[in-house]
């Protein structure tokens, strides 16, 4: 069949012919069985392909793909900003899965020889990201769990120290313990666990006393560690 007839057939199927051209072409269809057969064949193929591809435009585009394309704002980090309860009452760690997924990297800190226990602890709290276990020179392993800011501007960190959980705040001479409680929550860092350990009341008092803010996010905590906790 000639290219001209094929092109007119295509245009007829696509509604691209003028009324006069349509009338002329349809007269030709009536007198040309092969053309009529081909028209039916092409029409059926069109319908088949169009129908097969139709579902592609009906599937929902997931949020992750939208984010990758820059079309969706990232979901805000789920911080303990809800005012129903103070964050330390909630049974969830604030830094999210990204941090929770990292973990249990045991770092042997090089503590200065003059360093008594407070120095080793201060160094660990100065340099260890939350949800990362750190072994001190004396053999203890501590694990910071979150960072907050006290009303007086000090940075404070809750950390797990063996069987207890403590809250310490950083002053000019290092970190000072503000409160301690027995720890009964999960010690492993590969799950979202109990933030303040089992004896929440004891730490509650400490948090209230210092006027703690909500915990900072991972990014801010990383910046604080990098800057030596100098940011006010």
């Amino acid at each position, binding site marked *: 069949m000639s*290219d001209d007839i*094929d*092109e007119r*057939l*295509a*245009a007829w*199927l*696509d509604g*691209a012919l003028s009324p006069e051209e349509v009338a002329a072409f349809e007269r030709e269809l009536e007198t040309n069985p*092969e053309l009529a*057969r*081909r028209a039916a*064949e*092409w029409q*059926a*193929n*069109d319908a*088949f*392909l*169009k*129908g*097969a*591809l*139709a*579902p*592609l*435009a*009906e*599937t929902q*585009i997931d949020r992750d*793909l*939208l984010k*990758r*394309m*820059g*079309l969706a704002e990232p979901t805000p980090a789920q911080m303990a900003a809800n005012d129903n309860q103070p964050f330390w009452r909630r049974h969830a760690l604030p830094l999210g899965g990204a941090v929770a997924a990292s973990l249990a990297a045991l770092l042997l800190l090089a503590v200065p020889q003059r360093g008594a226990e407070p120095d080793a602890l201060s160094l660990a709290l100065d340099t260890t990201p939350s949800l990362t276990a750190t072994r001190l020179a004396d053999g203890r392993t501590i694990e910071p769990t979150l960072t907050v800011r006290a009303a007086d501007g000090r940075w404070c960190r809750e950390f797990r120290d063996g069987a207890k959980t403590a809250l310490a705040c950083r002053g000019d001479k290092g970190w000072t313990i503000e409160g301690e409680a027995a720890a009964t929550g999960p010690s492993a860092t590969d799950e979202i666990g109990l933030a303040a350990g089992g004896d929440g009341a004891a730490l509650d008092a400490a948090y209230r006393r210092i006027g703690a803010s909500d915990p900072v996010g991972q990014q801010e905590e990383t910046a604080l560690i990098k800057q030596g906790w100098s940011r006010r």
Partner: protein
Amino acid sequence: MRQAGRYGGECMAAGKAAGQTFKDAVIAALPRLRRFCQGLAGNAQDGDDLMQSTVERALARAHQFVPGTRLDSWMFRIAQNLHIDGARAAQRRGHQVPVDELPETMGEDGRVTLEGRSDLAAAQRALQAIPDDQRAAFLLVVVEGLSYREAAEVLEVPVGTIMSRLARARGRIEQVVGRGPGAVQ
């Protein structure tokens, strides 16, 4: 924000609002863009990669979009250009799947055979059997419903070229899935 430049002199909030409006329009066009991209690329993964590249380029060049024209057509053009660039880079441009390499698509009635498999997979195989330029014209007109003139603008070719590409595409598809004198035996 680039879009703010179009509204020079307006405040940043207006620029942001315009940018968001543009993004909303892009999102609204995504379902058809996704179908077009998958039709061009031949599979879901490559199609979504192409869609993502298309959207990224559209957002980066939002200032080039002419208000009052069809955003979907503009994005189809970007997708087609990216697809061609990719094909050139892979030295695959003009590559066709020889009909004789598609034995499972043929038979007494190839379409029935194809329908017995996955319709979508069968459609993709048929589309991949035609050259890129014909496939794009077919997708734009038959699947996306663009007029010949609109398709010609997207592909930046004369209307007559669209007509001939569609005729050749259908002839090729008939060979792959159809029966009768055109069918490959």
